[in-house]
């Protein structure tokens, strides 16, 4: 099993634990929200004590984090509530400190939390993918109808990170006061959410307050939706988000999965027949010639579709 269905969970209901893994130092405590038992990837609420300092260094895992409360200093950059970071594996962040303490949401995507002191990036790091942004101040809210069928008006998003290969994304979402949406939804992807502020309600799980969290595997019903006073949350998917809406609260994940396949068969019948008849549904999917074709520069392609040539002696991971 990878990550189980954790929903609903509220981090306010459990105490912080000191981080005992090497490299994090004292003053770094956490609450585990969800955890992949196969690869160690996880999402944690993290509390940095006042005066906390962390030397420059990198993680072997890809990392995303957002400042939930307080301020942190990252190198010469002062980062307030809402500041978001996407950090590729092996990317050496400068010194991180917090004078008054801070609350963070940290997501180690590809392995367990790790940290190695270093002021240089790991040679295998995809450093060009790094980005950070003050998501509260520097991005405007967009209507939630970027996908179709879409959420009702009153649910808006700010896109923080997007993988052009898998369509996985990280985003802020908010619901305006008195938001309501009367349908049941499921997706073909995993979905994760954490309430930075405010309460929303889902018909299966009840209220999700500030500090509320879910990790939801594919095909699990959620909704109808409502929020009396509004909320702001961070959400993620691990592949394309498609809203399969319906109104049968008793359908099971297995039935929902079959419905997704049935809808694919109706929408893309030729592609569906090819997949089924040729049994080309092996775990890594069929070959994409753009990933494997010989190139004049002898380069190779990464999971995000970009390709380039470089020399190194170490292992190099491809999805």
């Amino acid at each position, binding site marked *: 099993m990878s990550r189980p269905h*954790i929903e609903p969970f509220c981090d306010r209901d459990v105490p912080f634990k000191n981080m005992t893994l090497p490299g994090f130092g004292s003053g770094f405590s956490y609450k585990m929200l969800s955890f992949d038992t196969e690869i160690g990837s996880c999402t944690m609420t993290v509390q940095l004590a006042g005066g906390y300092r962390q030397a420059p260094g990198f993680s072997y895992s*890809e990392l995303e984090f957002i400042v939930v409360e307080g301020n942190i200093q990252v190198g010469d950059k002062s980062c307030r509530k809402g500041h978001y970071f996407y950090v590729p594996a092996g990317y050496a962040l400068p010194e991180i400190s917090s004078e008054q303490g801070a609350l963070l949401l940290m997501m180690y995507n*590809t392995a367990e939390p790790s940290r190695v002191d270093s002021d240089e990036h790991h040679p295998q790091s995809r450093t060009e993918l790094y980005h950070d942004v003050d998501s509260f101040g520097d991005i405007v809210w967009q209507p939630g109808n970027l996908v*179709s069928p879409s959420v009702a008006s009153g649910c808006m998003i700010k896109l923080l990170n997007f993988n052009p290969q898998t369509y996985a994304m990280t985003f802020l979402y908010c619901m305006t006061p008195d938001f309501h949406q009367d349908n049941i939804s499921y997706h073909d992807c995993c979905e994760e959410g954490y309430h930075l502020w405010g309460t929303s309600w889902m018909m299966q799980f009840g209220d999700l307050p500030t500090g509320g969290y879910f990790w939801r595997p594919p095909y699990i019903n959620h909704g109808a939706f409502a929020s009396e006073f509004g909320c702001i949350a961070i959400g993620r998917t691990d592949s394309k988000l498609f809203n399969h809406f319906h109104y049968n*609260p008793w359908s099971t994940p297995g039935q929902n999965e079959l419905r997704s396949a049935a809808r694919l068969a109706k929408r893309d019948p030729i592609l569906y027949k090819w997949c089924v008849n040729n049994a080309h549904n092996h775990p890594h999917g069929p070959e994409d010639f753009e990933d494997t074709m010989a190139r004049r520069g002898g380069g190779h392609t990464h999971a995000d579709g970009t390709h380039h040539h470089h020399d190194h002696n170490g292992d190099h*991971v491809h999805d």
Partner: protein
Amino acid sequence: MTFIYTKIDREIPDEVRQWLEQEGKEQEERYQKIVAEMKALNPTRDQWYEEFFERLKKYGFNADGDQRVKIKEEELPVKPDGEHVVVY
């Protein structure tokens, strides 16, 4: 399914393996607690489902965005036999 985009492999030290094992155990406890809490919510949830069906008949189902389609009584699903679960 994972968020895999970038990763660098390494040897996992023993102390990290112990941490992983402990976190796995604690997560199993959290999961079982959630399952029990959601089971206890069944009677309230049944009422929420009925209220949902009433809204579908009166105001409609959000088919896409704010587009609402009224659902007739005879179109509503029948509750199946057996225990209903929402956490899998």
